[in-house]
């Protein structure tokens, strides 16, 4: 009996060993291997594959983070092409970790949806992504927003992201609170802009009324850091990086002046317990009277209390605003999102992935793909379909377009971007703790440039 048991045990172990052993027949070579894609002429995509499966990992880019919405459009794609799409939904909190781990394990997805700061500056730069430049002909280049096209193109000339949507990041204010404090007089509600002088007056009026901080320079992590960067840059016209995107310039005196101004305002707190998402929640709760992490997705999304778009949990009115600047003309941080293809060494999958991108970003289905994101199309037309008027039926989207002309430089493609973000929020924490501002800014901007 014991002998039998021992034999059974030994067999179980052997089976376990086999089960746990890696499959050496894995067809995925390392990302460093040269791509096996065939040359493809512009505007002549590969014949739709009869079958095949793609994996798409998407960050929560508008409703591209919601399964029911994404499933509808990917099902339509599958019905059209025969290529099935398996979608995994990433969160910004740990999405990068998952992708990095997948790359390390040679298990990267076929497609990924995000912005140039990840696709071009990071994964593309390191050679993990397929060059998409053969997907753009002259018509495409004339239709696609020039700034978006530039941002999606690596300095080496290769294109690692096919842009689908763009938007302008902005801030928001609680209009009811502003009215109660008599601070609404400082807002240009028609153009959704205000000056630095009026911003300071408004914050002071709100603080005098509520006797508590009304805005938070959140700096727990990098989440939503575009808001704090835009706030600091706009107040006195500072810049974050050079126009050629080869150096970080946030140590310029105008940014130091802005940080000193913010630090000296009792109505503004430097809060290392909040990230962008946390700030939005506190703003929704009506505690903070302004949010620096905002865009059209937030303006459209009903909050958790289901009080309706553009309303706080208490039903107070939220108004989106440009960041305050000296002359009232902000330079807003842009958001550009699209698709990249990981080079997993399977040319058939790369072709299928290009078919997917073409279907989503440059076809009669593009309007639907853009609407799923709740942002604006990155191009004026797609294969003859006009995309400029796809939001005419949506009042909020239409109104939001007033901010689009204020789109500023897309500096997120500056070399060392991921590291620079860490330096930025760490710097804000130090400033919040009372460190010497000029010295701290110089140190962390130096670190960003050294990285």
């Amino acid at each position, binding site marked *: 009996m014991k002998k039998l048991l021992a034999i059974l*045990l030994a067999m179980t172990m052997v089976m376990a060993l086999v089960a746990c052993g890696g499959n050496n027949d894995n067809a995925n070579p390392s990302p460093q291997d040269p791509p096996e894609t065939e040359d493809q002429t512009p505007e002549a995509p590969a014949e739709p594959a009869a079958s095949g499966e793609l994996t798409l990992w998407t960050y929560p880019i508008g409703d591209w983070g919601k399964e029911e919405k994404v499933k509808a459009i990917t099902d339509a794609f599958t019905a059209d092409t025969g290529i099935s799409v398996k979608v995994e939904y990433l969160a910004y909190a740990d999405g990068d970790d998952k992708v*990095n781990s997948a790359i390390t394990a040679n298990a990267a997805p076929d497609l990924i949806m995000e912005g140039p700061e990840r696709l071009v500056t990071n994964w593309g730069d390191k050679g993990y992504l397929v060059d998409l430049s053969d997907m753009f002909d002259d018509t495409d280049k004339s239709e696609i927003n020039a700034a978006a096209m530039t941002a999606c193109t690596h300095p080496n000339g290769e294109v690692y992201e096919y842009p689908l949507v763009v938007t302008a990041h902005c801030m928001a204010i609680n209009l009811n609170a502003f009215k109660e404090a008599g601070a609404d007089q400082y807002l240009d509600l028609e153009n959704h802009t205000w000056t630095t002088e009026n911003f300071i007056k408004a914050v002071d009026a709100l603080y005098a009324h509520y006797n508590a901080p009304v805005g938070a320079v959140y700096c727990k992590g990098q989440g939503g850091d575009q808001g704090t960067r835009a706030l600091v840059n706009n107040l006195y016209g500072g810049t974050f990086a050079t126009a050629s995107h080869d150096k970080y310039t946030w140590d310029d005196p105008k940014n130091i002046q802005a940080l000193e101004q913010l630090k000296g305002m009792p109505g503004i707190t430097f809060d290392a*317990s909040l990230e962008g998402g946390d700030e939005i929640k506190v703003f929704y709760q009506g505690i903070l009277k302004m949010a620096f992490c905002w865009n059209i997705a937030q303006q459209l999304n009903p909050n958790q209390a289901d009080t309706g778009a553009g309303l706080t949990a208490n039903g107070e009115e939220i108004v989106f605003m440009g960041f305050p600047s000296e002359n009232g003309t902000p330079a807003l941080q842009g958001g550009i999102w699209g698709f990249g293809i990981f080079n997993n060494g399977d040319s058939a999958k790369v072709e299928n992935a290009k078919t997917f991108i073409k279907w989503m970003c440059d076809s009669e289905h593009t309007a639907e793909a853009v609407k799923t994101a709740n942002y604006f199309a990155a191009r004026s037309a797609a294969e003859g379909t006009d995309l400029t008027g796809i939001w005419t039926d949506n009042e909020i989207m239409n109104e939001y377009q007033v901010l689009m002309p204020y789109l500023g430089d897309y500096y997120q493609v500056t070399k060392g971007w991921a*590291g620079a973000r860490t330096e930025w929020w760490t710097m804000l924490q130090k400033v919040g703790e009372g460190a010497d501002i000029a010295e701290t800014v110089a140190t962390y901007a130096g670190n960003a440039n050294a990285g």
Partner: protein
Amino acid sequence: MARPSKPTMSRALQRRENISGYLFMLPSLFFFIGFVVFPMIICIITSLTDANMHDPGMFGNFIGFSNFARLVKDVDFLEALKNTFIIVIVSVPTVCAFSLWVSSAIYKLSGPVLSAFRCIFYLPVVTGSVAVTVVWKWMYDNYTGIFNHVLKGAGLIEQNINWLGDSKYALWCIILILFTTSVGQPIVLYVSALGNVDQTLIEAAEVDGANSFQIFWQVKWAQMMPTTLYILVITTINSFQCFALIQLLTKGGAGTNTVMYDIYWTAFKLTEQAGHFGYANAMGVVLAIFIGLLSALQFKLAKEK
């Protein structure tokens, strides 16, 4: 008189039983070697290399002790090491002292009451760390947290304290949570150990005129030393490896970076330095050395006692 020799059959039976025993151990051994010993060896080897996620090959290039030399000058790592030691130095003695005190107070209680206390103190241990942390996060919240609400209501503070966002408080807040989640197991162990103290020794000490303190220190404490040693070692290791609380509450900001979090950041976060497994593993080796040294010291002291 010659001792009767053991029958040969018995030895053979013993051997067969030994073999069966080892076979039963093998599945555990397989997992222990595969998921503990082997990764440890890989960790030590890669700590001497420049292994990273961007270059092909698992082990990178051998670079000797360069990673360790770099660690000595790494300001972030040194700060993380300092914070880790603060957590250990504060957490371990307080957990031991508090659990001993609570156990002494409750171990003579009647069965159901004792069980109730054990449940209460053990509850944070069995509750998922994420759930516990979320509740604490609500309580610490800068804007809506109960601590600020109570302190403000009592007139003790004028403006809210940013518990998790201010470096004056954040690390201590984390130590407090770690404390509440760490005392459960020591209390249960101490209650058990106190219940097993030999009563005849206590009675003998009483007859000899020993007072309560002397009975505790000379009789009970001495008999509980193996339990104390186990608690010290486990609490030390847990404190050194504090990660989830940091990740969920502060992400290493506001002066709460620890070595474990630094390892995670270096290995996996999306920065240009990400995926530097060799360097991250060097941090892990340093941490393991400190844990080993402290545990050895605790064993030595306990043995002397």
